[in-house]
């Protein structure tokens, strides 16, 4: 399945910890210059996959290649081509930012002659210029995350693997780091993991949704949303009669094209519903239904199903239905 431009390929990747399957039979590829978002709830196997791609762990079975080298056969070659930021940016807190980056650059094989220039370039890019002398232990979480990014990129690797690069940052920092990643993504191949959806929409051109160690969906954010239909948000005044809310939910769900309706909120006699539906606009039908049933309509609006809904469908709802089946 490896296409010519694929820089990362994984096939049949499986990792078991004792009884637990962290990932099962993962197969995917990442093409050159792509920013791939690895999306999934906690414990879905994102981190495990990244650890395998960086040769920190070996898969129980299956194989992966990075930059044309097998992760198990030639780990040193793989590592030379990769910059890796593990979750929570673990750094040597007793060193200053400059000392730390010098150490990393040295071990990364950046020659002494270029070291200074490369460190300067990356620290400017990451906004660390004024913190070079600070001990890492004194830095805030946001700055540590930047140092983590800087260490992953100081040797200018063609491939970057970033495990939750924006976790623990404040909203302003998140925007900055996202811009940084987009900037980097122009020249390099990036895999980043996250459970933060806006992040994927902001910085990735392809998404891989994983759940319970399996790939649940893959595509560009636009592809994933395409043809998924709309959400309708309806708020009605039902007068507080017993069972009225249940009846309304059923009636809404029975509309043609509706896949399901759920009650989302109740405030006195006001009840809100969310209706998922594909096909033509249902707003007129909902209005007529309300007139027919004598409901007072307080609000009606519609919104295209977004990545967040898809993610929820693929993870939470899929889990629920497997539980029911079992």
């Amino acid at each position: 399945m490896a296409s010519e431009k694929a820089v990362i390929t994984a096939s049949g990747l499986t990792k078991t910890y004792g009884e637990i399957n962290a990932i099962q039979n993962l197969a995917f590829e990442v093409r050159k210059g792509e920013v791939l978002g690895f999306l999934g709830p906690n414990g879905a196997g994102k981190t495990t996959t990244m650890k395998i791609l960086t040769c920190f762990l070996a898969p129980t079975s299956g194989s992966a290649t990075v930059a044309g080298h097998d992760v198990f056969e030639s780990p040193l070659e793989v590592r030379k081509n990769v910059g890796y930021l593990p979750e929570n940016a673990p750094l040597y807190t007793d060193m200053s930012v400059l000392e730390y980056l010098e150490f990393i650059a040295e071990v990364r094989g950046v020659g002494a002659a270029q070291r200074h220039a490369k460190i300067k370039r990356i620290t400017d890019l990451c906004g660390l210029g004024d913190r070079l002398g600070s001990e890492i232990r004194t830095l805030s979480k946001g700055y540590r995350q930047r140092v983590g990014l800087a260490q992953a990129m100081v040797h200018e690797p063609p491939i970057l693997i970033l495990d939750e690069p924006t976790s623990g940052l404040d909203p302003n920092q998140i925007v900055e780091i996202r811009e940084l990643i987009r900037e980097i993504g122009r020249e390099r191949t990036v895999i980043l993991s996250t459970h933060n959806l806006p992040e994927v929409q902001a910085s990735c051109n392809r998404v891989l949704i994983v759940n319970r160690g399996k790939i649940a969906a893959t595509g560009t954010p636009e592809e994933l949303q395409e043809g998924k239909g709309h959400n309708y948000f309806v708020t009605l005044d039902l007068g507080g009669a017993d069972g009225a809310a249940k009846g309304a939910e059923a009636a809404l769900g029975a509309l043609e094209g509706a896949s399901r309706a759920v009650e989302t909120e109740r405030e006195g006699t006001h009840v809100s519903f969310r209706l998922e539906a594909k096909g033509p606009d249902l707003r007129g039908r909902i209005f007529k239904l309300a007139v027919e049933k004598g409901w007072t309509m307080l609000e009606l609006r519609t919104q295209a199903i977004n990545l967040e809904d898809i993610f929820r469908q693929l993870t939470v709802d899929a889990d629920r239905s497997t539980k029911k089946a079992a």
Partner: protein
Amino acid sequence: MNMGSNTLAIAKREFRGYFNSPVAYVVICGVLLLVGFLFFFFRPFFVVGKASCRELFTFIGMTFLFFAPAVTMRLLAEERKTGTLEILITMPVRDAEVILGKFLAAVGLLCVMLLLTLPFPITIAQLGDLDMGPVLGGYAGLLLEGSAFLALGMLASSLTEHQIVAFFLALLMGLVFFMLDWALPYLPGGMTSVVEYLSFGYHFEGITRGVIDSRDVVYFLSVIAVALALSFRQLESRKWK
């Protein structure tokens, strides 16, 4: 990329790390105070009636029991706990370079500590005629024995992510090797020579007398090699399927 430069870079960082934290100062001061106390309390140079450093070397050798676990406990355990190990070994370095670099840093600290004990033999030399041969031999022996203790500490640190556990594990292993020859009188005849051969004391004894026997050197180097190889296996075990 050659093997040596990575090892040295790691060793350098680790060695500097000792002095960036209170570890080096506290441990070295502790050792010097303890040796100084034993030295002036027992005043071995008067009991024997002639200038000799043998007892001094025995004292210093005893402090290794604590010195080695204290300086090695964090080497791998801390990195595993904080996750920094993940960045370190996903760089283009071999696992062996990680182990070797860290071990060298600990040996470097041992050298600093040994240098700081020099005032003791100098004091003794003031009191009488001191034969320099056994003194040099004694220091060579201390370096070897100390390195063997450090290698055991490294192994302990590779087995756990808790520094305290690593400390006591290293102390325990050190004690076993250290006290083996105390058990000799209680052992059946056939076993004594084997157990004697395995004990640190037996080999160290020869060296402090000023005789550097290649068998003793080989013994300490083997202990170091085996302990480091086991640490390497332990570090690598994360990749076992």
